[in-house]
């Protein structure tokens, strides 16, 4: 029943990426999905706001640091994507060419190319240095996200029509598509050694697939217990050793799940996430302390310590929901971007 309500509301939106809205809950049922737990706060960590800019005219849908740590890219519902330098947030490229708003932007492993996915049913690959559009793949359905694999030769794109697409980056035509789920697929990500990839979908399942053959190896569901319903899973990412996956779910939980047993090993709570596809990310610092960052719909950026699950900081500087966060690959810096009408990108530093 709930699913039917969802699809009806979905088609009434004209520009999906403007809102990334998955508003299907009833206010009465809301309480059962948020697991109430005392969340202790730890001391000893300070976060400072480094800089803040408002480069876009509409909501910013995703934010990503480049693998070499020099640039940060943002995509927005105003049909453009922009690339900035990390040191002073100076805009170096503005990539325009899509006909509708963008949902996602991601980097190639050598930091030379970015790929943008958009509501106009295409994925485009751009060269960072010149800003030129090099490739376009047409998938005949709204594309939620697309990511490169660590070798840089394959692209995984996930679309609204429940298909998962694997494409050759160098070719001009998409390679292979296969039915992955029974509901729209929100995010896809490769493991560090290119052997498997993970996809997350609205039905709350994370599926692990083998790259070479395309067979499904494992399915993980994110429900709290067999009695509770499954809530949409909107983001999935592998840890550096590809043993665990970090996922964001629409019951305000960020989970770290073991892919072999399917059980969640860590649960991070304290933020609010039941409407938008809010992203989360890791932050690895040189002091051997690891953190998990997530955005929240009350405008705050939440930071947890990875092992102890303690909330380290709640940074409330945005006025609107924080849609995406991104952790720098090497420095203790992270970025956050927000919804309209604020449309700002903020960079934070961890001490």
């Amino acid at each position, binding site marked *: 029943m709930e699913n039917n309500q969802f699809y009806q509301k979905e088609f009434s939106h004209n520009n999906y990426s403007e809102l990334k809205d998955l508003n299907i809950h009833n206010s009465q049922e809301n309480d059962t999905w948020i697991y109430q737990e005392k969340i202790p706060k730890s001391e000893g960590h300070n976060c400072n706001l480094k800089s803040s800019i408002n480069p876009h005219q509409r909501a910013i849908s995703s934010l990503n640091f480049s693998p070499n740590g020099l640039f940060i890219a943002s995509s927005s519902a105003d049909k453009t994507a922009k690339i900035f330098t990390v040191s002073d947030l100076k805009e170096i490229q503005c990539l325009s060419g899509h006909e509708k708003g963008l949902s996602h932007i991601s980097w190639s492993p050598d930091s030379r190319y970015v790929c943008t996915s958009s509501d106009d049913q295409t994925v485009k690959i751009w060269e960072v240095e010149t800003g030129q559009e090099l490739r376009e793949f047409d998938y005949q359905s709204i594309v939620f996200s697309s990511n490169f694999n660590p070798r840089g030769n394959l692209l995984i794109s996930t679309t609204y029509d429940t298909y998962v697409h694997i494409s050759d980056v160098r070719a001009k035509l998409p390679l292979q598509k296969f039915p992955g789920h029974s509901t729209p697929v929100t995010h896809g990500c490769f493991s560090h050694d290119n052997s498997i990839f993970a996809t997350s979908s609205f039905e709350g399942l994370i599926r692990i697939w083998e790259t070479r053959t395309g067979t499904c190896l494992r399915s993980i569901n994110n429900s709290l217990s067999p009695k509770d319903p499954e809530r949409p899973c909107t983001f999935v990412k592998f840890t550096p050793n590809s043993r665990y996956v970090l996922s964001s779910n629409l019951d305000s939980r960020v989970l770290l799940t073991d892919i*072999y047993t399917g059980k969640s090993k860590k649960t991070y709570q304290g933020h609010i996430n039941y409407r938008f596809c809010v992203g989360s990310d890791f932050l690895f610092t040189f002091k051997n302390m690891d953190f998990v960052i997530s955005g929240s719909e009350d405008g705050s950026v939440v930071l947890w310590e990875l092992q102890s699950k303690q909330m380290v900081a709640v940074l409330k500087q945005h006025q609107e929901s924080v849609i995406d966060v991104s952790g720098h690959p090497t420095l203790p810096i992270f970025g956050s971007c927000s919804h309209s009408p604020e449309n700002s990108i903020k960079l934070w530093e961890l001490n």
Partner: protein
Amino acid sequence: MNLLLKDFSKNFLPSEIEHEVERTKQKFSLLKFNRLGTLLAVVFQDSTIAIWDFDTLNMIKYLENTKENRIKKIISIEWRLDGREIIFANSQKILFIWDILNSEFVAKLNIQQEITFIEKHPIDNNKYLITSSSETPSVLQLFPPQNYSSQKTKPEKDSLIDFKYKLFPLNKDLNNQPKKKIRKRKPTTIRGKIQIFQQAIFSPKGDRIYYVNNSKIEIWDSNSFEILNLFEIPKTEPLNLSISRNEDILLINGKEKKIHVIDLTTQSKIHEFFDFVEKRSWTKVLIHENGEYVVSGSSQDHLIYFWSIRNRELIKIVSDKSSDKGIHDIVFHPRFDIIVTCSENFVCTWAPMAQNNWRGFGSWFTELTEREQVKDVIPKPRNIENEEKDFLDIKTIQKDPLVQQYLNFENCLEEEIIDIPLDIGKEDEI
């Protein structure tokens, strides 16, 4: 490590076609994988070389056969160990070394021997084993100039680096005295295509060379170039040799259509495989790394035979019905149980039959045995605090020697290049 999620099927023979690539304008002739199996070098019959990305089977680089190159006809090809250069021999006694990344020639060596097969040393980047039609097989030792490192770019375009080389012929008798030179016959041609033949092979660790010389197998030391031992086998003219990874078994593809299986521990021939029904001749014979089964490709039809070493019999005959021309080349993938074959118009990838893993779609379901009575299970409330106390290791990559790693960067040699860097130009493609 991540492939521990997969159940390896009992059917281990790579007998199902996974991918097929067809080319009507160009005809295939040779195939070769680089050390880690990420790139495939494909040679066409008009002596052009293409480098394919194995994940996608799409072409990345291309070497044309122009009048300036003077490649003429390519007989045999081999990758250099660092994965950046390719060495190949043509019919005019010249060895070329071509740099893939910069798409230019590094060196051209005039060997003065007609080469029919070149094989690289497993560990040493500068040693190659050459089989010739007019001389005894010899080891080619390359001496690159002192400052030469494959990572550096050349100062001028179109300039060639002066590689010095020395040939050590395997031409001594048991007392290590040089023998008289024997003139050999010229190689035969099959339908206009020069038949490649291989008389000597490196051992898997590279310390020894096995040389099949008429009715004897001679064992040479590859560092001092001295003969260590020899033993007798029935007379055969070898077309192609293959050795198992633990140096147990040597396969000889004989010209008389027989596959001889030689046990190197007992130094005797234990068996021969032969097609009694159709009396097929084999283009190439390969033994699987573990020494369990043998793959042979027929030279007239597109048929692949699988033989078992332990049971000494034929296991399976597989054919690709879309083509009726002979198989020109077969190669094993270095890390997976995959075979790639090429015939005139097709390159096919063969893999073990994939089992439909329906369990992957519903991993939380458990199978019930018959007559098992299951009562309604009332789920216990999860005590999350107790369950999630453990320390998680998210960075160290676990190694599992039993499972082949898809791409283990720690296995790389110094200065090895696994992949051609991504370079998407706007106006490229063929």
